[in-house]
Structures are given as structure tokens and as C-alpha cells.
């Protein structure tokens, strides 16, 4: 296995897509299967050259479906495995993801979201939140969902994703959007992580020599067994809910207007916070990083001291439903979104905040 030494002192200008690919290899990913689709083509292109060099496998699969099912095999064999795609391709993987979840196989699935529905376009979007967090596939399963908002974070979260996938034996979705995938920023690489192999996988398929056969399955026909299996899954989900709660608070301590936003959208929202602060408004930003589990407690606490909450998404309003559910009647929840690849400007968001502020001052 050839490993080029990674200079962990030097920042490199790279795109989110490349950051994800490089991080995967450094995290010990040794199986990659994918099918080209914009805006994430840089990942398979990069992997086709680098995976063989890293002693791993690159397969350009015949379809997204083949890719996710190859991951099923690679993961069943105990390997760290990744596939990447964008919205339509991710829709095709839903059956496979449900199988991986059902069979308790970890893997990393990257969705570099684009405008939908259907073929849509290739502009950045955040309209697959529901699919990722509620489970676009069938059955009672969840996958961990992590949403980076910078290239560095795309790199860091990809590494984290492999650990979580092994720890909890679940698919982990990196929910990036076209903006994160395509944009370049300086990245500080952290080098190879050899604890990658630190997870014992006694259940993995290695040949039954000297032990009872291992079976990887999600099918439990006998009455009651599937329910038991589901209880096990739910218990694991409860554990994940307790342990995975990533978010960023930006100027929220004294904020009475709270913006909730994730991914690249949160970057623009941050600009708006900065701008509104200059205008003297006490605006803050809550940025969930783990979208599932959603950092409910943290938001709940902030919501109590907020006069109003503005959810901003590059979608028709998806995460806003979770926010409403969590916030309950603590604060009114407003929404501003752009769809189909439209990117709101800082000004648009600030305008929404001003509207809310006006409504409040009028009330007084």
C-alpha cells in the first residue's frame, strides 16, 4: 500500500469534492463504487486514480444501484466503503440504503445535492433534507446525516463519518450541496488515520473457518423476529441520538432573533447575521451539523429565549418542519427559502429579518 506522506502543515486549495475523496482515503476507505453525476464528478475521477494507489478498490459501477449494492458487499466483508452521487442518483440508492440499515452495515454515502425534482438542474440545492433525514427508503430506519458548511468541514466530517459508520453499524450520509462540492477553499489535511481499522467486526464475512457461520441479513420472516430486530435498531438510534449532536452557535448568546440554517446556506446566513448586527439587531445563527440526529435540545433551549426564529433553506421548506416540531409554541417560526438551485443573497435574508423586526416593533 503506497501512502504519500501528507503534509499536515500546509494548506491546500481544494474543492469540497476533492476534500471528501481525500479524507475518505485517509480515513481508511478501501472500497469506492460510484456512477458519474454532476456536481460530484470530481470524486469518482479522483478516486479512479488514487484508490488503486492506496491499495483500495475503485469501481465505476454500471449504475447507482449497482454501486450501493457493491457497498453492501464490501461492508459485509468488513471494509470501509463509500459511494457518492447527487440527488437523482441518491434516489436510486434508497432501496440499497434501507438494506444496509436493515442489515446493520456501515458505509458512507455522499449526496452533493442539486436542484430538483426530476432532472432539475445542476445548481446547488438543499431539497433532499427530507429524503436524507426521514429516510427516503422504506421501513423504520435512520441514517446519521452530517452537513458540512465549508470545504474544511467536508474533509473533517467525512473522516468522522467513517468512524460513526463503524461504531454504530449504520450508513452515514454526508449531505453536501453543489456549492460545498464545487467550491474551493484552503484545507488543512490531518493525515492518515490508522485507528480506522480499530473496530472489531466479528460479524463480518470472512469465511466460517473455526467459527459458526456469519450471516448478513435484513430479512426476518418468522413472526416477531423482525420486530425484535427493529427494536434493536431503535435502541441503537436512541444511543446515537444521545451521542451525536453536532451544531454551531454563532452569536446566539444574546440573540433574540435566531436564524436556523445548515450547510452552505448557513454561510450566507452568517453574512446576514454580521450585517444585521451592524445595524444593531440581536441576530444569531444556529447551525445544525448533524441533521439526523437533529440537535433538538440545543435548539429547544435557544428557542425559549428567542422572540422569533427564521429558518433559511435552499428548498421549499424541509428542515423547517423539524424546527417547528421541536420549537413547538416557544417562538414563532418563519421561513425563507429559494428553490430549484436559486441561491439567496445576504440581502434577501436580512430583508426577511427586517420584516420580522418590523412586525414586532409594530406590535409593541
Amino acid at each position, binding site marked *: 500500500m503506497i501512502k504519500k506522506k501528507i503534509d499536515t502543515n500546509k494548506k491546500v486549495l481544494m474543492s469540497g469534492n476533492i476534500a471528501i475523496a481525500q479524507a475518505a482515503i485517509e480515513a481508511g476507505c478501501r472500497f469506492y463504487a460510484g456512477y458519474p453525476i454532476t456536481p460530484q464528478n470530481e470524486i469518482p475521477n479522483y478516486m479512479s486514480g488514487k484508490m488503486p494507489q492506496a491499495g483500495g478498490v475503485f469501481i465505476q459501477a454500471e449504475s447507482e444501484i449497482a454501486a450501493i449494492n457493491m457497498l453492501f458487499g464490501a461492508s459485509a466483508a468488513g471494509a470501509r466503503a463509500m459511494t457518492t452521487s447527487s440527488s437523482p442518483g441518491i434516489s436510486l440508492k434508497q432501496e440499497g440504503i434501507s438494506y444496509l440499515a436493515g442489515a446493520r452495515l456501515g458505509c458512507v454515502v455522499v449526496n452533493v445535492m442539486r436542484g430538483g425534482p426530476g432532472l432539475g438542474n445542476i445548481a446547488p440545492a438543499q431539497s433532499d433534507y427530507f429524503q436524507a433525514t426521514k429516510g427516503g427508503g422504506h421501513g423504520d430506519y435512520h441514517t446519521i446525516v452530517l452537513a458540512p458548511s465549508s470545504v474544511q468541514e467536508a474533509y473533517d466530517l467525512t473522516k468522522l463519518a467513517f468512524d460513526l459508520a463503524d461504531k454504530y453499524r449504520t450508513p452515514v450520509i454526508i449531505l453536501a450541496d453543489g456549492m460545498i462540492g464545487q467550491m474551493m477553499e484552503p484545507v488543512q489535511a490531518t493525515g492518515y488515520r490508522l485507528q480506522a481499522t480499530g473496530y472489531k467486526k466479528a460479524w463480518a464475512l470472512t469465511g466460517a473457518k473455526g467459527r459458526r457461520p456469519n450471516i448478513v441479513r435484513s430479512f426476518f420472516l418468522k413472526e416477531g423476529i423482525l420486530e425484535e430486530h427493529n427494536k434493536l435498531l431503535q435502541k441503537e438510534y436512541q444511543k446515537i441520538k444521545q451521542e451525536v449532536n453536532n451544531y454551531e452557535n454563532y452569536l446566539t448568546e444574546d440573540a433574540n432573533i435566531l436564524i436556523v440554517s445548515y450547510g452552505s446556506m448557513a454561510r450566507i446566513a452568517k453574512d*446576514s*447575521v454580521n450585517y444585521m448586527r451592524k445595524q444593531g439587531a440581536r441576530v444569531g445563527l444556529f447551525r445544525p451539523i448533524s441533521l439526523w440526529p437533529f440537535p433538538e435540545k440545543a435548539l429547544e433551549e435557544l428557542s425559549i429565549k428567542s422572540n422569533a426564529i427564521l429558518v433559511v433553506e435552499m428548498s421549499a421548506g424541509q428542515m423547517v418542519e423539524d424546527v417547528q416540531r421541536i420549537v413547538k409554541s416557544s417562538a414563532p417560526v418563519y421561513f425563507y427559502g429559494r428553490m430549484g438551485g436559486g441561491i439567496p443573497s445576504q440581502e434577501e435574508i436580512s430583508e426577511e429579518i427586517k420584516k420580522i423586526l418590523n412586525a414586532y416593533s409594530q406590535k409593541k
Partner: protein
Amino acid sequence: MDKRGDGQGISFGKDKMTEQIIIAGSGGQGIMAMARILANAAMLEDKFVTWLPCYGAEVRGGSAYCMVKISDREIASPYINLADTVVALNKPSLDRFIKRVKPRGTLFVNTSLVDKKPKKSDCKIIGEDFSDIASDIGNVQCTNMVALGALVKSSSIVGRDSLEKSLREAFKDENVFLLNEKAIKYAMKLVKVRKRKS
């Protein structure tokens, strides 16, 4: 430079320098490479940078553009609404982005591909026959580098050393490097000359 306090790219409280540049053209004009070399040069100067591309029809034809932010401090959004500098390498790009130059900003126009020099009173307009110049140097494909030379020369967003270093990182092949360097240098000279003239 953002000195107008509109908050774009400016952190709350402090008023640091942030340069916001949009480079636009058609699919084959090397927009992305040009922007990347620029962004990388800025990174080499330890600046914060973001480089955000936008392609038209997947890769070819149509109009493509790239947004580059360069700043002394962390950049929130990579997205640019109004830019300090717009470089328009063809007609559709010009039509589209002329309204997104900030007051007192700069607009670079590739007059080779534009019928008439545009009018916009509140910003500086630098029009050059970038494509023709590139053609003259030997390759119309170097249009982007000609424009880059003009941009760096007239704005000094990045230093020449870092630009050269960045260029080297971009073009490993010596000949390709030399051709592109030539285009940049030629443009740098040119802008000075023309400036004097005008």
C-alpha cells in the same frame, strides 16, 4: 474592496478588507482556471479565499462564471451578489453581470467579443481585446491569462510573485507554463501602456 459597509464578507464589528471578484465567460474560455490561479495565489499570501464556480450546461457552451473572494479574515459566504470586480470575457456574460458591479467597482470587458464598449457610469471600465491579443500571442485559448494579467496589474489583488508561484503549481508542463506566463506578462505591459494613453 469592501469599504461600503454592506456586510458582504465583512465580519461583524471589524472592517477588514475583502475583495469580491466575478469572472464570467463561455464554457471553453478557461474561466475556472483563471479564477483558481488567482485564488491560489491569494492563499499563498496567507489570505482567506473562496472559489465558487458555476457551470452552464454541465461542461460546455453556455455561460460559466466563477466567484472568488479574497479576504484578511474568515469568509462567511462564498456567494457574491455585488462584486468589486467583474471580468466579462464574452457578450452574454457582460449582459448578465454588468449590473452586479458595485458602485466604484471595476468591470473588465473582452472587447474582442463585444460589439460596443458598455456604458456604466458608476464604475471603472477596462476594455481590452483580450481574445485578439491572445490570438496574436499565438493561442486564442490564452484569453483567460491575458485577462488575468490585466486584472492583477490594475488591481494588485495579489502580488506578482505569488501569481507566478500559483501559475507554476497550475501548469506542470514547462511549455504550457511559459505560454501562459507570456500571456500574463504581455497583458500586464499592455494595461500600463493603454492606461497611460487614456
